[in-house]
C-alpha cells in the first residue's frame, strides 16, 4: 500500500481539503516559535485571505456559470480601491473624528460607493465586453485583457500616475494586545466583513431558489435552460455581484495597504488568478480555501523566509496542481 493511500482516509476524516488552512496554521506555530508573533501573523493572513476571497470569488463564479474567464475582473478591484480612497478623502472630517460611529460611517460609505460602482459598471462591462464574444474563448481572453489595459489607463488618467495615500478611519487604525500578541483592528474588521460575505453567499447559494439555479447552471448550463430557465439573465446578475464584490475587496485592500498605485489591477490579477487555480474554478468554497491558503502562507513565509515571500504563491500553486490538477475544490461539472 502506498503512503498516500494510507493517509487519504484519515485526511478525509479530518475534513479533507477544508482542513488545509488549519494544518498550515498548526505547522507554522513551531516554525514561527513565538506564540504572540504567530497570532499576529495568523490574524494578518486570515484578514488578507478574506480580502482576496472577496476579489476572487466573482471571477470564479462567473467562470463556473458561463465558462467566461474575465481577465478584466481586476479592473473592478482597482476602481473599487481608488473610489474608496477618494470617498475617504472626501469624508476626511468623519474619518478623522474621534467617534467610532462616524469612522464606520465613512468606511461604509467608501465600501458602499465602490460596490455600487462595481454593480453598475458590471452591467456595462458584461454588455460591451463579455456578451459580444460569448462562447469564443480566444477572443474572450484577448478582449478582457484589452479591457484591463484600458481600465488601468483610465484609473491613471483620473487619479494620476503617482501613488495615492488612503486615509484610514481613526478608530480602525489602532491595535489591541491580547497576551502579548498585537492585533490590528482593521484586520479583524476585514476578516469579519469577508466572513460575513462568505456566509451570505453560501446561504444564497445553498438555501434559495436562485442559488439552486446558479449551482445547477455551473454544472450544466444547457440542462437548466431545458428545464425552462433563462440563464443569461441569471448570469448578468452573477456578473454584477462578482464585480461588486471585487470592488468591495479593492476598497478594503486600499485601506489595508494604505497606499495604492495604478498598477494595482494587474498586480491583483496575478494573485486572484493563483487563488482561483488553487481553489478550483466555479466554487466559492474553493475560492475561500485558495484565498486563505495564499494569505496565511504569504504572511508566514514573509516572516520566516523573507526572500521567498513573493515566490511562495507560485510554489503553492505548483504543489496543488501536481496534487490536484483541477484545484482543491472545483465545482462539479457534468
Amino acid at each position, binding site marked *: 500500500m502506498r503512503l498516500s493511500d494510507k493517509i487519504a482516509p484519515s485526511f478525509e476524516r479530518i475534513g479533507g481539503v477544508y482542513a488545509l488552512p488549519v494544518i498550515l496554521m498548526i505547522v507554522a506555530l513551531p516554525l514561527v516559535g513565538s506564540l504572540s508573533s504567530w497570532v499576529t501573523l495568523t490574524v494578518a493572513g486570515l484578514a488578507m485571505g478574506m480580502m482576496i476571497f472577496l476579489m476572487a470569488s466573482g471571477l470564479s463564479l462567473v467562470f463556473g456559470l458561463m465558462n467566461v474567464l474575465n481577465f478584466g475582473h481586476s479592473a473592478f478591484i482597482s476602481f473599487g480601491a481608488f473610489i474608496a480612497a477618494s470617498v475617504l478623502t472626501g469624508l476626511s472630517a468623519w474619518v478623522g473624528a474621534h467617534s467610532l460611529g462616524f469612522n464606520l460611517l465613512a468606511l461604509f460609505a467608501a465600501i458602499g460607493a465602490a460596490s455600487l460602482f462595481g454593480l453598475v459598471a458590471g452591467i456595462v462591462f458584461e454588455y460591451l465586453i463579455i456578451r459580444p464574444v460569448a462562447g469564443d474563448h*480566444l477572443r474572450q481572453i484577448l478582449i478582457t485583457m484589452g479591457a484591463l489595459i484600458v481600465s488601468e489607463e483610465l484609473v491613471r488618467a483620473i487619479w494620476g500616475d503617482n501613488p495615492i495615500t488612503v486615509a484610514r478611519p481613526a478608530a480602525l487604525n489602532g491595535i489591541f494586545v491580547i497576551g502579548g500578541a498585537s492585533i490590528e483592528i482593521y484586520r479583524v474588521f476585514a476578516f469579519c466583513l469577508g466572513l460575513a460575505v462568505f456566509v451570505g453567499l453560501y446561504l444564497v447559494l445553498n438555501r434559495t431558489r436562485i442559488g439552486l439555479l446558479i449551482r445547477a447552471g455551473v454544472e450544466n448550463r444547457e440542462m437548466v435552460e431545458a428545464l425552462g430557465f433563462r440563464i443569461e439573465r441569471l448570469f448578468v446578475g452573477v456578473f454584477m455581484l462578482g464585480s461588486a464584490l471585487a470592488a468591495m475587496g479593492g476598497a478594503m485592500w486600499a485601506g489595508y495597504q494604505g497606499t495604492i498605485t495604478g498598477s494595482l489591477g494587474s498586480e491583483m490579477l496575478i494573485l486572484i488568478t493563483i487563488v482561483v487555480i488553487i481553489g478550483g474554478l466555479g466554487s466559492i468554497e474553493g475560492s475561500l480555501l485558495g484565498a486563505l491558503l495564499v494569505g496565511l502562507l504569504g504572511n508566514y513565509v514573509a516572516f520566516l523566509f523573507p526572500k521567498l515571500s513573493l515566490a511562495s504563491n507560485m510554489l503553492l500553486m505548483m504543489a496543488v496542481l501536481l496534487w490536484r490538477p483541477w484545484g482543491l475544490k472545483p465545482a462539479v461539472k457534468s
Partner: protein
Amino acid sequence: MTDTAAERDLPSTAACARPTAGGVALFSVIAVIGLLLLFAPFVFSDVRSTQVAARICVFVVLAASYDLLIGYTGIVSFAHTMFFGMGAYGAAMGLKFGGADWGHLLLGSVGGVLAAAVLAVLIGLLSLRVKALFFAMVTLAAGSVMMVLASQLTSLTGGEDGLVYSTPRLFKPAMKLVTNADGEAARLFGVPLDGRLALYYFVFIVCLVVFVLLARIVRSPLGTVLEAIRENELRAEAIGYRVVAYRTAVFVIAAVAAAVAGVVWAVWLRYTGPDTTLSFDIMIDILLMVVIGGMGTMYGAIIGVVVMSLAQSYLKDLMSAAAGATSGVPILPHLLDPDRWPLWLGLLFILLVLFFPAGIAGTLMKKGSRS
C-alpha cells in the same frame, strides 16, 4: 464544446495560396519592410533608427512565435516573455560571469534556451491537457513568478538593476571589420564597416533564420495537424492525433524561438533586466502586435510589429500635440497625455478583436478575393 464559431473568422492558411488584390498589397508592403530591414544601417544613418530596426527584427521573431501558439494552435499563453527572458538572461549571465567571448556567449545562450525548452515541456505536459482558459491562467502566474525571481535573485540576475556586460570583440564599436589605408574602419556608401554593423547583421540574420524556420513549420505537415486540432480538437483526437503531445511540441518550439530572440536582444542591448525582457508590458505588446497584424498569418506578425513600433514612436508625439490643443477641456487632456497611449492602443485592440478578428493582414488578404 469547440470554438468553431471564432476560428472560422480566422484566415485559414489555404487562403494564402490564392492571391487577392489585398494580398498583393500586403506582400508588397512586407517586401519593402524586409528590404528596409536588410539595408537599415545604410538607409538610416542615425543610431536611433538602427535601434528601432533591430528591435523590429527581434520582435518579429517574438510575435511570429507567439502567433504559432495563438493563431495556429489556439493556445493563449502569457508566459512568452518568460521564455524571452530566459534566453536573454542565459546569454547575459554567460557574458557577465564567464567572459565576453563567443564560447561563454554560446554556453550561456544554449543554457538559457535549454532551460526555456525544459520549462515549456513541464508547463505543457502539466496543463495543456486542460482547458485553454486554465492554461492562460497558469502561464500568467508562471510569467509573473519568473519576473519576481529575476528581481529577487540579485546575485545571479542583478535584481531590478539587471546585468550590464560586454559582448564578443567582433561586436564592439571600436572593432574594424575592414581597415582602410589610414587604419580606420573602411566605409561602404559612407557607413563605417565596424562592430556596430556586424552586430546589426548578427541580429538580422539570426532573426531571419528563426523566422524562416517558423514560417516553414506552419507550412509543414505539422502545421496541417495543428490546423486540424484548432478546427476540431475532438475530431483530431478521434483520428488519432495525440493532441496534448502536439500542443506541447508547439509550445516548446515557440518557447525556443522566443528564447533565441532573447539571446539576440541581450547581445544587442549589452544589458538585460526585468524591464527589457520579462515585464508584463512586453507581453501585452506582443499580444497587441499579433492581434493587430493578424492571428494565423506569419506575415501578420511583421505588419503588427512594424505598426506597433511606429505607433509607439509617433503616437506619443501626436497625442502630446492633441493634449496641448485641448488643454481647456476638463478631462480630455488627461486622456490625451502621451503617457496614456496604451489607453488608445487598448481601445484599438478591443475594437479589432470585436470587428476585425483577422487583423490587418488577415483582413487585407480577404479583401478583393472573389469568394
